């Protein structure tokens, strides 16, 4: 059941230069699944006008968490919210990641971690995580990730002694010769494009996509992406799609 509700902010913590973790109280009746998102209303004023979509990073009893990067004016305003402020949000919306039967591969590009963390936590010790960031200090939740994954590989674009240097899809290709496990991925468009090249036709590969949104409920047709069967809505037909469906 998705809902429109006002939630009290438990914390809105700055983790890196531009990444924040927002934790809000959530009513008990809110149920969510990994891969779903909420729309967060930024203010009661008319500018900015539209709510912004954010993946559910984690959802434990009575608390929903969002991990977000400050990109523009909406997220900048979001970063000014304080503990005990109230925020209006709606959701959870969208198709979740089909549940993995056994072990699975997760590929997270940067802030894309926000979409897959909850999945790995829900199915602990079963994910082979490939996590790509630009530089070492952008690696988030290292300890928690070690805890919930089966194996974890990190790539950085900048040189770093402990990580693979390069883009994450290269790392996947290298470390994961046997690509028969299902893949769950979220990251920037360039990563998804690379991934599409890597993935075989027979491979199960779910990716979370992004598009600007207005309604979030499938009504406005504003958030479509191109698929083999024509335009589909990220908010309701997605955000999780089988990569083979997408024309990236």
């Amino acid at each position, binding site marked *: *059941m*998705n809902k*429109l509700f006002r939630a009290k902010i438990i914390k809105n913590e700055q983790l890196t230069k531009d990444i924040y973790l927002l934790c809000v109280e959530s009513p008990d009746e809110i149920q969510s699944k990994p891969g779903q998102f909420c729309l967060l*209303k930024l203010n009661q004023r*008319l*500018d*900015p*006008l*539209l*709510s912004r979509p954010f993946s559910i990073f984690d959802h434990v009893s009575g608390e929903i968490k969002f991990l977000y990067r400050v990109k523009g004016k909406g997220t900048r305003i979001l970063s000014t919210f304080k503990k005990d402020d109230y925020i209006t949000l*709606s959701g959870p919306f969208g198709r979740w990641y089909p549940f993995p039967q056994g072990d699975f591969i997760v590929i997270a590009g940067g802030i894309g971690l926000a979409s897959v963390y909850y999945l790995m936590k829900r199915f602990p010790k079963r994910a082979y995580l490939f996590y790509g960031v630009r530089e070492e200090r952008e690696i988030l939740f290292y300890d928690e990730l070690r805890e919930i994954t089966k194996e974890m590989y990190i790539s950085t674009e900048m040189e770093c002694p402990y990580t693979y240097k390069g883009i994450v899809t290269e790392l996947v290709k290298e470390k994961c010769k046997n690509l028969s496990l299902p893949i769950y991925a979220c990251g920037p468009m360039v990563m998804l494009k690379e991934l599409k090249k890597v993935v075989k036709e027979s491979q199960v590969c779910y990716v979370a996509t992004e*598009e*600007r*949104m*207005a*309604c*979030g*409920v*499938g*009504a*406005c*047709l*504003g*958030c*479509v*992406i*191109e698929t083999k069967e*024509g*335009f589909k809505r990220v908010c*309701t037909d997605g955000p999780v799609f089988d990569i083979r469906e997408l024309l990236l």
Partner: protein
Amino acid sequence: MIPSLEVKIGNLTFKNPVLTASGTFGYGLEYSQFVDLNLLGGVVVKGLSLRPKQGNPPPRIYETACGMINSIGLQNIGFEAFKNEKLPFLRKYKTNIIVNFFGENLDEYIEIAYLLDSLEDVHALEMNVSCPNKTTEWRKMGLEPELLRKAVKEVRAVTKKTLIVKLSPQVTDIALMAKICEDEGADAVSLINTIPAMVIDIKTRKSMLGTPTGGLSGPAIKPIALRAVWETVQAVKIPVIGIGGIVSAEDALQFLIVGAKAIQIGTANFINPRATVEIIEGIKQFLIEENIKDINELIGSFIQ
């Protein structure tokens, strides 16, 4: 004492003057999780054409100052799918169902109007004469008086249902366009549709949308819409339905006071999925505070 919110348009009765605007409320069902559709004066569904339509390439929306610009390009599921997949669900609600429709050319307008006329559960038709992409001559019908006259006349001839013509704001004299609709037998006019607009990305030098231009909606355009409605109300006797940037009961009341018989809520649904019902509640409160028993006393009470 609970004031009466009932208004009439053509021979249709609306339990209140608050409808949804086409394209912003899907087929109603999408919002039924947030809003009890039975409470609405009416639901205007997404613009329908004979055949399904793909619409424009993404990105399709961009936020602007107190507004948004869209280039959906009238994507829709087409008449058959609407009839078979949406209408059976929508008909269960006690609200007026209004189908917004359009065609690539006049023949298509006539054909879909004719087909819609036969659907018992459709209460009114809203003819969208303001298509953003002017690919054919007929697509200019919202901008050229003589094209509009012919189009309304021919559509009128094929349907007995309440016919509302939805006007484009991109004309010098919108009241004149409304007058033409009245002359040709339309039961009402609704206005305004989105205003052609543009936003570009200074880095890429390209449009922020998949098309160069789109349509502007939201609070930014409200003062323009209100003026257009007022001008129109003074020129025609048929009801005028006000649309454009309404986000609060206060906004809605402004339109009613200048003379709109009803109003439609568009972009506001995105900002607050419960906007429609909150606006109905706000209008009711205002009538109680001002001791007005019947909303029709308020309508057109503007003092110049």
